[in-house]
């Protein structure tokens, strides 16, 4: 994925570039609106990450200028957590927005969602190692053994499996599975993951549901067994 980051705060720009490059993206960085507009107009990016407050030309102006020429997807970063900003950003043609301070995981998830948007239909079957999921019949197997899951447990499994290899924060999981659109300050997700893990992972090998401490959870088949895999909490 080819990305342009327009961000004047050097530390933010630096970690975004580093993090996104490591995720396999080709990342260009502009530190002000003028450079950003130039790059955005000259090159064809898959997504542009655009800070709203910029020296030179501000993000909204840049966005309007860009939209007159092309439809590159744009994620706005806005420091002011106000409704007007969001409305203004979306009205001007931003595809999504994030309120600062945002988490890197959140940005990653939004980028992937934007990329997915254009993609063809979702698969109906998922397969990770020997885990098999039928999204239509809402059934899952580990090898040949059928796993008995409640509706929400299946939804949780499907959310994780669809985003295979993608780290999902607890907040993101709560939103995707239960439509709880806020920081809930509760350990519900931890408990739900623990119970899912008991059904899907504990009796089987390889382990697929991993805890990334401080960040969230990821479902993927790893080369070797995790040494520092945390015990279920």
């Amino acid at each position: 994925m080819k990305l342009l980051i327009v961000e004047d705060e050097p530390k933010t720009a630096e970690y975004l570039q580093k993090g996104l490059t490591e995720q396999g993206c080709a990342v260009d960085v502009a530190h002000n609106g003028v450079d950003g507009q130039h790059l955005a107009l000259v090159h064809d990016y898959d997504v542009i990450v655009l800070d709203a407050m910029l020296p030179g030309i501000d993000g909204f102006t840049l966005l309007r200028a860009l939209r007159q020429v092309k439809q590159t997807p744009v994620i706005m970063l806005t420091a002011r957590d106000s409704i007007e900003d969001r409305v203004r950003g979306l009205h001007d043609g931003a595809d999504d927005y994030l309120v600062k301070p945002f988490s890197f995981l959140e940005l990653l998830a939004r980028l992937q969602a934007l990329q997915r948007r254009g993609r063809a239909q979702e698969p109906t079957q998922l397969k990770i190692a020997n885990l098999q999921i039928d999204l239509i019949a809402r059934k899952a197997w580990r090898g040949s053994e059928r796993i008995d899951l409640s509706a929400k447990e299946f939804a949780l499994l499907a959310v994780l499996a669809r985003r295979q290899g993608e780290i999902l924060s607890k907040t993101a999981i709560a939103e995707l599975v239960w439509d709880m659109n806020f920081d809930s300050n509760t350990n519900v997700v931890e408990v739900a993951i623990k119970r899912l893990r008991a059904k899907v992972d504990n009796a089987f090998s390889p382990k697929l549901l991993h805890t990334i401490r401080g960040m969230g959870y990821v479902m993927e088949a790893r080369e070797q067994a995790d040494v520092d895999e945390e015990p279920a909490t």
Partner: protein
Amino acid sequence: MKRSITTRLVAMFALGALITLSLIGAALYGVLERELTRDQDDDLNTNLQNMRYSIERFGDLEHWARMQTKMDTLSPADGSVRFWVLSDDPRFLYGKGLDEMERVNQGEAGHGMLTMPISGHTYRTLSMRIAAFADRPPVRLIVGVDTAPFEHTLRAFLIALTLLTLGAVALVMALGWWIARIGLRPLQRLSLEARALRPKTLSQRLQEDRLPVELEDLTVAFNGALGRLEEAYQQLEGFNADVAHELRTPLANMIGGTQVALSRPRSAAEFEDTLQSNLEELERLRSIVNDMLFLARADQGEAATGLTAADVAHEVEMTIEFFEPLLDETGTTVAIEGELRAKATMNVALFRRALSNLLQNAIEHSAPGASLVVTITQRTGALWIAVTNPGATVAPTHLPRLFDRFYRVDSSRHDAGDVHGHGLGLAIVKAVASMHGGATLATSDAGLTTIGFSVAAA
């Protein structure tokens, strides 16, 4: 220019005095004029009747000469009373300036006004017709009284009245100024007192006992405002301390952990561990900051947007469903009671957030296996959602403060391993309620604690 109460009072006193005195003056003037007129009329009538009697009875010239003499006698030298007799027979004419009279006074019998064209004197007249008798043809007898003294009296009275009124108004103004100054003295004292108030002396109040009744209301209201201000100020100070305390722990953990990690050569795994630990603390900080921003917006009076008409019981079910893993784990059950068909206009995400904070709170403060109840109550103007949990009774002194930021009934409870909350959960419930024009309630009795909030009914 600023309006001065003293000036206004003086002006109003003056206006009042002016109106009162003018009315009195006008009335007096009217009375005087009427009395004087009646006096003149009496005078006229007496003279007329007197002469009429004399004239009526005789018709010869000899008597007529005597009549003339009588009229001469009755007419004072200053001309204040005059007689005229008009007749077709020139022998029976009498009076000065008869030519003029005939021209100006062709009127009928009765009262009239008459201005002598040459002398300019104005007379009030009374005339009557006397029938012919013997030699005498019918004559017209006119008696006139000069109005000059009458008008002079009235004019003098008017001037005196005006001067007196103006003088009285001036006196009232002076007195009014003095009265206003004295009357406003408590206000001056009050403002001096108020000026002495400082943030440091917020507990100070204005003295109420020595004040007049009119100022007492104001002072009581002002003192009430001071009280609320003091409370808010103390709460703010306490709040700052709480925030600092709340932020200090994760910061200290991060600084200490990082210092320890850097003080020796470490393996990558050890550094990773440190970073992960830091990340946990940072997530905690982020969550506190986000919640505080949310509360700040609610404090600024931001109302909930994105309102939709929602089925309340459905939203309650959805939120309980979210807690299901946790409820299963602890064997806790939740029942929904009350008006299950109720609808409310609200921001669904905020509603779920508030309710999930209440549920989290209820689960935390009840033993495993407890039965929780979510009650939906429809009251006039508001829809209440309350969560009841069995658990230790909360002392009444704590109840109203449960919704304060960082307020903990038992400070040790926090340290006992409550890793999820940071003391803002119920404050957020209150904020959500206020964003929906609602309120909060907390009761605790006989081992049952109920905490709830309302949203304004659609």
